[in-house]
């Protein structure tokens, strides 16, 4: 057996009182793909940042090809043959591909020879790994998939033998992800070692040779992928059997509450994000919107919630709501009976510097019941906040604590307490359990079901297919700003939804993957040409 490409021994790292990595050891054989899987906040990214020289480990050793190696900074990591593709790309948007590739790896003080060398090298790499890209394209004109390709090329140009990819498919469509996996497969064939960080079980099963599971900063297991199952990995990830299906009675849908017809949204950059969608939500049902992040779901929520402009028609209990200009704002939407738990609670749902009690009225702060004369009734609001926090089991139950001092789950409970308690006709809820601990997830799911059983209409947006499948009464799949189709959870499965999420409407049997690829190749060309 050859020496491992990378070996970590007893790595520990703490950020203040938080132990992000605890005594972690891994060993990865050259020419293999090693997956690291774990929930958000399990410490995966910290570990890789240590390997790439972003952080210094408190304890532990790193061996590269059997040699003990110190990695104090990224320069050292690059010198040791490590390349990293971050979740958020580190590219200069208004530079060309070529300029981005040579940045930091130039030959000599003048650019001209470096650029010439990179150009020929790029041609070479393109042939070797099937990584075609126009070297003179400006990054901001490239599709996300192609930008990621530039990141991989950057690493290869620096002669990386070990490639770390951090959640590489988070921003990709399924077809782009498949393309990426083919590239990774090719790299493995050429003898490169790849570490793939993800929280998606499917990807681990599909491509890795071995997999390590992390939980709360610790490495709980390392197994051969061929000898494990998704269920087993899931269990290792969360530390106990996961309740995938939520207990709920069948829905008894009533009158239509929300009607959306021909809704279109154009974002600030002039890109059409929602391309004419129709949907209805009835009393007492949960409509789940599935889709890969970035296919227009966020914009749909923003328009319904009144903080983005759109065109088309929205009717709430039969009354048409304005989509731009006067009356198209969060206040008016709330008056119309729409409550909204937004996707990003830290940037939207809460003011992190505000106390819990101030947040409990956020968005409803103009209501007469919170005023006394021309001033706000702060004492009254504090009392109400205390009551709500007790009812939603927010811990610690201190209304005067700033929102930023609560955990993710408790922050989400504050938002829920505010929105649900206002007795809305329609609840918009985006990514209800993102960054929320397991205990709180169950609580939040129960609250959503309970609200439905009270006869409220609920529109749920989530990128977690499991969540959509277990909560929804109907599922609509969004792709590229369109609704690709609606399904009932009992009569569909992850595979069918996955195809819809990739933009394939009817099931064309075995050729499905191929069709998707062609479609994306076309799209990439369009985007590249723009």
């Amino acid at each position: 057996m050859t020496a491992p490409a990378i070996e970590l021994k007893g790595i520990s790292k703490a950020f203040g009182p938080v132990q992000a990595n605890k005594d972690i050891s891994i060993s990865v054989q050259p020419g293999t793909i090693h997956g690291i899987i774990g929930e958000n906040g399990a410490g995966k990214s910290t570990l890789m940042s240590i390997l790439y020289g972003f952080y210094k480990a408190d304890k532990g050793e790193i061996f590269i090809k059997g040699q003990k190696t110190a990695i104090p900074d990224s320069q050292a990591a690059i010198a040791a043959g490590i390349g990293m593709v971050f979740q958020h790309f580190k590219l200069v948007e208004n530079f060309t591909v070529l300029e981005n590739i040579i940045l930091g790896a130039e030959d000599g003080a003048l650019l001209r020879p470096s650029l010439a060398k990179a150009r020929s090298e790029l041609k070479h790499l393109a042939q070797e790994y099937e990584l075609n890209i126009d070297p003179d394209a400006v990054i901001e004109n490239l599709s996300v998939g192609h930008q990621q390709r530039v990141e991989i090329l950057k690493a290869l140009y620096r002669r990386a033998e070990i490639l770390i990819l951090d959640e590489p498919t988070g921003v990709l469509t399924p077809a782009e992800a498949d393309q990426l996996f083919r590239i990774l497969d090719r790299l493995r064939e050429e003898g490169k070692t790849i570490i793939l960080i993800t929280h998606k079980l499917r990807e681990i099963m599909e491509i890795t040779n071995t997999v390590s599971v992390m939980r709360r900063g610790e490495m709980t297991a390392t197994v051969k992928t061929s000898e494990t199952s998704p269920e087993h990995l899931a269990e290792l990830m969360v530390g106990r059997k996961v309740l995938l299906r939520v207990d709920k009675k069948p829905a008894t849908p009533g009158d239509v509450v929300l009607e959306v017809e021909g809704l279109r949204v154009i974002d600030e950059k002039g890109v059409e994000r929602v391309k004419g969608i129709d949907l209805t939500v009835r009393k007492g049902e949960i409509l789940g919107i599935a889709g890969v992040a970035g296919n227009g779901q966020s914009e749909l929520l923003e328009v319904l919630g009144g903080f983005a402009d759109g065109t088309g028609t929205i009717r709430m209990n039969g009354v048409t709501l304005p989509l731009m200009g006067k009356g198209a704002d969060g206040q008016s939407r709330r008056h119309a009976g729409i409550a909204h738990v937004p996707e990003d609670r830290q940037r939207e749902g809460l003011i992190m510097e505000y106390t819990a009690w101030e947040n409990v009225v956020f968005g409803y702060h103009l209501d007469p019941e919170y005023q006394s004369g021309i001033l706000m009734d702060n004492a009254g609001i504090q009392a109400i906040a205390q009551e709500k926090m007790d009812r939603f089991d927010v811990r610690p139950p201190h209304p005067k604590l700033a929102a930023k001092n609560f955990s993710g789950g408790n922050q989400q409970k504050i938002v829920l307490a505010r929105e649900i308690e206002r007795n809305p006709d329609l609840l918009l809820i985006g990514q209800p359990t993102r960054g929320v601990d397991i205990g709180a997830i169950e609580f939040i799911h129960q609250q959503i079901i309970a609200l439905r059983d009270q006869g409220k209409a609920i529109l749920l947006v989530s990128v977690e297919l499991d969540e959509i499948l277990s909560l929804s009464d109907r599922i609509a799949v969004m792709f590229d700003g369109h609704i690709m189709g609606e399904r009932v959870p009992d009569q569909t499965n992850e595979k069918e939804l996955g195809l819809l999420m990739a933009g394939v409407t009817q099931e064309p049997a075995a050729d499905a993957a191929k069709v998707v690829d062609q479609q994306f190749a076309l799209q990439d060309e369009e985007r590249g040409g723009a």
Partner: protein
Amino acid sequence: MEKMPHWADIVLIPLISLFLAAILSALVILAIGENPWAAFKLMVDGALMRSSGWGYTLYYATNFMFTGLAVAVAFHARMFNIGGEGQAMLGGLGVAYVCLFIPWPHWSLALIGASLGAAMFGALWALIPAYLQAKRGSHIVITTIMFNFIAAAVLNYFLVNVLRPPRSMDPATKTFPDATHLPSFRDMFSTAETIMFRGAPANVTFFIALAACVLVWFLIWRTKLGYEIRAFGHSESGAKYAGISPVRITVISMLISGALAGLMSVNTTMGESERLVLNSTEGAGFIGIAVALMGRSHPFGVFLAAILFGFLYQGGAELALWTNIPRELIVVIQALVILFTGALDNMVRMPLEKLFLALRKKGDA
């Protein structure tokens, strides 16, 4: 958990910053061959030990309260209004027009009229940068800097070409009518036997400044508008979600800020010189930045910091009178306070946070 107690954030850090600025200033005084301690005593004597000294200290403090509040209100909406100087200049123009062209029967009415004029002109001068920031994304710091220079040109034009009395060489208006004379502290507090605040310019405007501090406190912490301004300042995306219009908040908070800066001119133009002169603002708009930073954008903090800077100003004038230390020493102190409380905040904060963390660990153990 918070890294350190709230009181350390609002009291200890400004005090340490002030202390650092004081030490450096003392070194400067030492370097130019004077005794810092004697200089300090002279400043205290001149600014605080006599009623006339207090009369000057409070006169300056009045200016700084207005400009400090102006900067503070904008800070709450996360905007850096560096244009207080220009807004105050225009405010002066407003005061001049109100005092010169309306026949006031009594000073109290004139004061109300002049305050409205000053606030309106100041607010108007802040409106354009605010609108450009809100609607076109033009960086408000740069536009307000530009507007300071444009204000200076506008004021210059009006004083030289429009409001200057014929045959006068001085770029200034004529003296305001007697009916607009504001009661000075001397008028108000002297008795038949003892004359208080002799020759000092402090006047009734001081009480307007105090009222402004109280009103701004209510505005920021007790009203819906204040709630929205702070929410917007903390998170624009959050504000949008809640239905708070960024354009509306940007414009309103800058209007309030500009109005407060403009009000300062009531004190200088109507209360002191009783005519509009070219350089009536004397950089008070910039001192407002130091005052707001030092006072942590809280009206009470602004009040205290304004008194402190009033003391420094009057003390500095005394120094210039009796020693070889020029008045510019105050500019240096002011620069150091801005540097330490504003730009080098982390330099003071980081070691303190470590200290408190260590203390807490010890306490836990």
